[in-house]
């Protein structure tokens, strides 16, 4: 069934988009991530303009993270204070990101920047995850215990001022690194059309030392708010959010996520991280190849203005 996407301005097959939403939802449910880093590239690969893909996926991630956040809230796995402090940085970063997005678009370099940032971010994070997963697997095979969090170890981050006690997470931490993490994720999310969960969760675990009990729920709250904010800003400044596309993605996504979550429980943690690392790495390499090989057409056209002034 062909459907015309009003903002993307191309006809697409509804079932293809629905299947993509479900597949990404499955992966996101399995790994507990938003899946934006997979969704945006997939949309770009089927021919939707990168700018529209980025803006529309933001609302798709808002939907999936909201359903996730609700279930984590019920289980009391969200630290409200930590989420609030992260959000201070997050909203600021999102606004900055949308502004950068608009600026790059006017320069005609937006598509390149989206592709480049995907290559850099995904290959780095994917490579690290893969390496981490591989090491954890080898260590587990060698019989040595896996130590994720070394209690009592202090780094320079813990010496920063403006300390706050985050009760539910049971940590005592300066607000500066928390705001900075929020800022970075908000910025990346708005520019690249990703929730940033796959970067945020490791950052929170390894840098902020947030316990695993509250880390995913709290990161989902940040994702939710930054993505709702990004949707609004993209709609107001660039008019690029395709609501029809977003709705199809959401329906496919939330359904797929349920099955993914069940599948994820059957796989061991380090295998899961290894798989996710591979997946992230593969998407990054796909973008890199696209940039390096000679494009089929060196020329492109874009409409810049309507009626004469």
């Amino acid at each position, binding site marked *: 069934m062909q459907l015309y996407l009003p903002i993307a301005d191309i006809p697409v097959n509804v079932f293809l988009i629905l299947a993509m939403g479900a597949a990404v939802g499955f992966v996101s449910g399995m790994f507990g991530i938003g899946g934006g880093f997979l969704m945006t590239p997939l949309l770009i690969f089927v021919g939707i303009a990168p700018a529209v893909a980025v803006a529309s996926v933001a*609302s798709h991630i808002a*939907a999936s*993270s909201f*359903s996730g956040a609700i279930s984590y809230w019920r289980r009391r796995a969200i630290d409200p204070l930590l989420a609030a402090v992260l959000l201070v940085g997050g909203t600021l970063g999102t606004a900055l990101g949308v502004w950068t997005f608009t600026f790059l678009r006017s320069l005609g370099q937006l598509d390149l920047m989206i592709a480049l940032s995907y290559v850099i971010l995904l290959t780095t994070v994917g490579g690290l995850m893969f390496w981490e997963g591989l090491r954890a697997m080898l260590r587990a095979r060698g019989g040595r215990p896996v130590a994720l969090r070394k209690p009592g170890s202090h780094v320079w981050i813990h010496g920063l001022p403006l300390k706050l006690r985050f009760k539910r997470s049971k940590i005592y931490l300066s607000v500066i690194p928390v705001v900075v993490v929020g800022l970075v994720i908000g910025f990346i999310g708005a520019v690249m059309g990703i929730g940033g969960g796959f970067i945020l969760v490791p950052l929170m675990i390894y840098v902020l030392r947030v316990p695993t009990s509250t880390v995913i729920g709290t990161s989902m709250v940040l994702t939710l708010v930054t*993505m*709702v904010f990004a949707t609004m800003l993209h709609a107001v400044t660039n008019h690029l959010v395709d609501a029809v596309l977003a709705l199809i993605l*959401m329906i496919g996504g*939330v359904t797929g996520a349920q099955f993914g979550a069940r599948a994820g429980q059957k796989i061991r943690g380090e295998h899961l991280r290894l798989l996710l690392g591979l997946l992230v790495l593969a998407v990054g390499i796909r973008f890199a190849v696209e940039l390096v090989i000679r494009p089929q057409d060196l020329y492109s056209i874009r409409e*810049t203005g309507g009626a004469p002034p």
Partner: protein
Amino acid sequence: MRLRAPLAIIGLVAATLAAAPASAERLIVSVSNHRVTVTPNYSGGELVLFGSVEKDDKTPANRSNYDLVVTVAGPRADMVTRRKERKFGIWINTDSRQFLQVPGYLALFSNRPFDQIASPEVQRRQQLGLNNVTLVQRVGPDFADVVPNDPFRSAFVRLRSEHGLYREATSAVTFLTPTLFRTGIPLPAEVPIGTYDVEIKLFSDGALVTKTESAFEIVKIGFEQFVATTARQNGLVYGLVTALMALMTGWMASIVFRKD
């Protein structure tokens, strides 16, 4: 305004008729549909243009071999053509040219090849063929059209042609009788909405005899068009509704798939 469009065309035709007493022939044309509504599942269609050459007593008796060129130009907009080049091992947009107020759709139809209809000089003056149509570019501080084989111009025409938005067909106009003619105007799925101007030029022995104009309008209707218009005109409301829709979907999912 839309209802008045056919009236305007009648007016136009009347004006052309009134203004054309000097020439010996008159052109009478009509488009099969003056207001084309495009629905979201529109996959392309065709309009038909009919017309006839009316001779009067001033027409030279031996004149019978007419040539006809139909130019259809869609709504105009500014467009940028960018060229990718290899820099630091990757392909990036480097050079660009801005085309000012160029038609979103452009079709040129004739009954035989342009070079058989008129001399190169007349072809250029009358803008016969995609190579001779004026496409104004901003070149530095100047505004000018460039030679047809300019790389940006030819890439622009080629890309538009690949989407069926620019076309030229030198056998599309058929004469049913020596004076009665018809041509189809194909409209691909991606046709831009707006007013389309149709210009019909009659040639004989390599010279322009007379010309007339017509027009039609393409309107998109349906839910998708409503969404697109809202997104452009009420960004804030649209963003709010989309965000709310996202939250509703998420909330629904958490209820439907609630495990406990």
